[in-house]
């Protein structure tokens, strides 16, 4: 008997589920008459006494009368109770590996569960009232005769499998409840909501039993790695690693990075407080074309669950030489040194159009004499061949209105990268504030044409910029570079003091003449499918000329900028798996985005793919338009062989090829059961509440057999539980009478 039952006679669930009634009254509301009468009688007895104390005695006397009236009216709780052995109760037990976790370092979750079930004679008591069916589940569910068949070695947990099986097996029998015993770790359900809704529709309560601890003692875990799916060769990819820990707050840990199994680097990290997520950006130098698997693992002292310490990221390193068009209005040193900085970068093709005299252009980096022969592109097809566009010091009136709009479309629709470099005819100096280009730019242009300022300034990297990959001057640790504050001064800039809302300012200009004003120096923003950047100066060439010739800062800066500019610019045909890594047998969703050469989305293309598994077997798949988004096609397959899969997609329309694309994904078995494996109380509570059931910590599982009988179902009857002899009522009666007597005694009325 619990403390609650000592005072209230019954368990809490009886009060939760039952409704109050009186055997002497047809309607419980009539009891209010007794309350009013009790108050009136009490007032009548004490009406002769004046003063504040009379009201206290009146209240105590009223309570005494009310309690007596309550007892005399024979109160009862009406509650639905199942008839013994008339209905079923399903017990489903988590059979996955996560049940082997030792939260406190001693017994496993499975051991604790089994011990508690035995100690409370759970199944014995349950069998007195129900026909009990026992199931186990991990990725699949099955009925078992007894708990000896529990293995706790399932590699994935899919709770919906248990719900589906119950619905099939017990769909036509009186099912009074489901006892779900798990740690709440579900890593594979895809249609859980639908599965549990079918149970809810039958009004069947789910009693959830939480096994494990919400905070595992001493565990560090990598929870997510975010990295680009593909990148250019000989560049630096940045992976963001998120991690958390329990019981190790403030302790140091080591993050190891391996590339295809070979140790790349190690970094010391500080573990966050319990419940918080830490993150760190890791620069990954990519120097080999092909599929590169980067593995991130965390090494923490006395870690209880080493199985959740590593995650992979698959990066496809490409050599596709994206083209960038740079239009410059006058010969400038910035143009010259920018070209030199990226000249040796074989991953980028910089095509330049330089106006050397009012009617004369000098072209560099062109593939043939036809390219840009008539100046700046006049068709979308011609312009959209490029993945990046740079505009230097050239007035906006150089372009026609159609070309200006085409540039906007280049960014918003084609998804290209746009950069404007400072100069006398850039930004407001080129009257771009009155052109459509103003919309693209991440800075707010003013109407001042004379915003080109000759004044010494240095680079003041913003807080955000400090961690941005573009501003990392020495990501590989191998280059000869200097720090930002060691760079020679810049000598001029286009003055803009405000970036647009949503723009990211990577650096401000620190003026030598004034520390109060900090104009924008380098900023970018997303615009439609693409992104646009503003670099407000044209004197970065001084970083090259005023530092030792072996210093690579200038080269590195521009290579990073230009690579970033085109890193997310799509091709007409793009295809990728939804994720970069799958577990064997997990469905793989493949998506393809198809556009024509002017990057208009196509919904009627013929899209076919080939998936080559690690053994070289080829599976042909057909993509279908999703119908949800223009130009997006979908296919699905399953990969069972661990390793790297290659996806090749070809798109055509009316027998003419649109393009092709190649990407990769990985199938790899990993102990998913140990990731995010803490007891998910909130989830289990929610499942119980939504079904009308109840959540039980493992220590209280012994209450479940008694509580489960109070359910309103096909095999239930209404029982009346008498309340007149509830001990609490007599305790209250004693207290009110005793209190009144004591009060009267103190006032000299007794």
């Amino acid at each position, binding site marked *: 008997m619990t403390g609650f039952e000592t005072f209230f006679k019954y368990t809490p669930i009886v009060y939760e589920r039952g409704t109050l009634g009186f055997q002497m009254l047809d309607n419980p509301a009539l009891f209010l008459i007794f309350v009013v009468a009790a108050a009136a009688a009490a007032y009548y007895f004490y009406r002769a006494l004046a003063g504040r104390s009379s009201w206290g005695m009146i209240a105590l006397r009223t309570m005494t009368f009310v309690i007596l009236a309550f007892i005399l009216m024979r109160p009862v709780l009406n509650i639905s109770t199942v008839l013994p052995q008339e209905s079923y109760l399903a017990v489903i037990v988590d059979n996955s590996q996560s049940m082997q976790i030792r939260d406190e370092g001693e017994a496993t979750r499975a051991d604790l569960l089994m011990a508690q079930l035995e100690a409370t004679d759970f199944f014995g008591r349950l069998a007195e009232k129900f026909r009990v069916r026992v199931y186990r589940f991990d990725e699949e569910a099955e009925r078992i005769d007894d708990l000896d068949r529990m293995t706790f070695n399932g590699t994935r947990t899919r709770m919906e499998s248990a719900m589906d099986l119950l619905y099939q097996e017990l769909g036509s029998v009186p099912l009074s409840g489901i006892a779900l015993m798990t740690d709440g770790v579900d890593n594979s359900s895809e249609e859980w909501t639908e599965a549990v809704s079918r149970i809810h529709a039958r009004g069947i309560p789910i009693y959830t039993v939480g096994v494990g601890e919400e905070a595992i003692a001493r565990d560090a875990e990598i929870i997510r790695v975010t990295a680009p799916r593909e990148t250019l060769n000989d560049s630096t990819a940045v992976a963001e690693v998120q991690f958390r820990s329990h019981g190790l707050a403030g302790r140091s840990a080591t993050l190891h990075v391996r590339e295809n199994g070979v140790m790349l680097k190690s970094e010391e990290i500080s573990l966050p407080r319990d419940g918080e997520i830490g993150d760190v950006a890791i620069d990954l130098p990519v120097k080999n074309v092909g599929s590169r698997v980067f593995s991130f693992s965390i090494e923490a002292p006395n870690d209880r669950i080493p199985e959740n310490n590593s995650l992979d990221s698959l990066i496809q390193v490409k050599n596709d030489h994206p083209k960038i068009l740079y239009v410059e*209005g*006058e*010969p*400038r*040193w910035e*143009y*010259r*040194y920018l*070209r*030199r900085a990226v*000249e*040796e970068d074989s991953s980028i093709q910089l095509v*330049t159009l*330089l*106006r*050397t*005299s*009012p009617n*004369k252009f*000098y072209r*560099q980096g062109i593939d043939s004499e036809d390219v840009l022969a008539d100046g700046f592109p006049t068709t979308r097809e011609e312009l959209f061949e490029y993945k990046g566009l740079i505009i230097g010091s050239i007035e906006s009136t150089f372009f026609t209105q159609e070309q200006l709009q085409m540039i906007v479309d280049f960014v918003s629709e084609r998804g290209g990268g746009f950069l404007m470099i400072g100069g*006398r005819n850039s930004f407001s100096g080129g009257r771009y504030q009155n052109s459509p280009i103003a919309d693209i730019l991440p800075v707010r242009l003013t109407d001042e044409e004379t915003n*080109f300022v*000759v004044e010494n300034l240095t680079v003041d990297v913003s807080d955000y910029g400090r961690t941005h990959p573009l501003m990392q001057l020495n990501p590989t640790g191998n280059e000869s570079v200097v720090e930002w504050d060691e760079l020679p001064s810049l*000598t*001029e800039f286009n003055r803009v003091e405000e970036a647009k809302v949503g723009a990211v300012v990577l650096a401000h200009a620190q003026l030598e003449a004034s520390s109060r004003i900090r104009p924008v120096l380098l900023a970018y923003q997303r615009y439609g499918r693409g992104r646009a950047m503003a670099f407000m100066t044209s*004197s970065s*060439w*001084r970083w*090259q*000329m*005023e*530092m*030792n*010739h072996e210093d690579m800062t200038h080269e590195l800066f521009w290579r990073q900028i230009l690579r970033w500019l085109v890193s997310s610019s799509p091709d007409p045909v793009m295809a990728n798996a939804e994720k970069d890594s799958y577990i064997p047998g997990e469905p793989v969703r493949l998506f393809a985005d198809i556009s024509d050469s002017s990057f208009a989305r196509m919904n009627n293309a013929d899209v076919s793919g080939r998936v080559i598994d690690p053994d070289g077997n080829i599976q042909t798949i057909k993509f279908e338009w999703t119908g949800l988004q223009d130009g997006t096609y979908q296919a699905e397959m399953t990969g069972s062989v661990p390793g790297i899969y290659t996806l090749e997609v070809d798109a055509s329309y009316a027998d003419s090829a649109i393009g092709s694309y190649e990407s990769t994904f990985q199938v790899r078995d990993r102990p998913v059961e140990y990731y995010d494996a803490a007891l998910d109380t909130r989830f289990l509570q929610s499942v119980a509440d939504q079904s009308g059931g109840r959540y039980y910590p493992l220590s209280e599982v012994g209450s479940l057999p008694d509580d489960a009988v109070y359910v309103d179902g096909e095999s239930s009857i209404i029982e009346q539980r008498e309340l007149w002899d509830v001990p609490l009522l007599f305790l209250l009666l004693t207290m009110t009478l005793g209190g009144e007597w004591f009060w009267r005694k103190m006032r000299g009325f007794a």
Partner: protein
Amino acid sequence: MNVIAIIMKQLLLVSLSALLLTSPGTLGRTAAQFVPAGVDGSEFVFARLIYPSYYGRRGRGSWATDWPKADKQFMFGIDRLSNVRIVLDQDVAIEIMDDNLFSYPFLYAVEVGKMEINQMQADRLREYMLRGGFFVVDDFWGTYEWENFSIQLKKIFPEKEVEEVPPSHPIFHSFYDIDQILQIPNVNLGCDGYRTHEQDGYTPFALAVYDDNRRPMMMINYNTDLGDAWEWADAPCYPHEFSGMAYRMGLNFIIYSMTH
């Protein structure tokens, strides 16, 4: 010229050079001043190199030959013919060891056959070009001046060789198409019309020292005199084919230096 005579002359030159270097003011820093590129929004500064030499004009050293009129007049032409934003009305001459040397990515020197630099100066010029500076030398003639220039050049780039620049090279097509190297005479010879060469420099050469990426970083106008042609382009007697060619070559050098 026999070997002993050459050695004697070299000794004499070294002595004179040492004397010049140890005498403040003898380099003729009469009008040298720092004019930063970009002043008033301008981009290009035509900077003339002040270097020590064993012989000079009007007491200022050979670096000052044709200066400042040639430079100024040339810049007016460049301003008129191209989009290059020129710093006009400024006579910029800069010494090798000047802190601001690296602010001028384009450098011009004349009569380099008389140049006498020490190793520190040579190292600085080497660093200048390796960083990306473009150096044009002009107006030196014949075997003797070539030999002296070669000695200076070896101080700068001991590992590099001078190579002839073919007419097909982009530097001759960056603005104008120049298909042959014309010998451009000084004003006296040009106006006389009798001959174009000086000393034994009968054949003009466009030579270069290339960087590791096969870009000329030092352009060498040997047996020709662009500077005089710029300076005397307004002289009625000076043949326009010479002044025209000098402007064309000069502009091509500038455009090339600003694009490669």
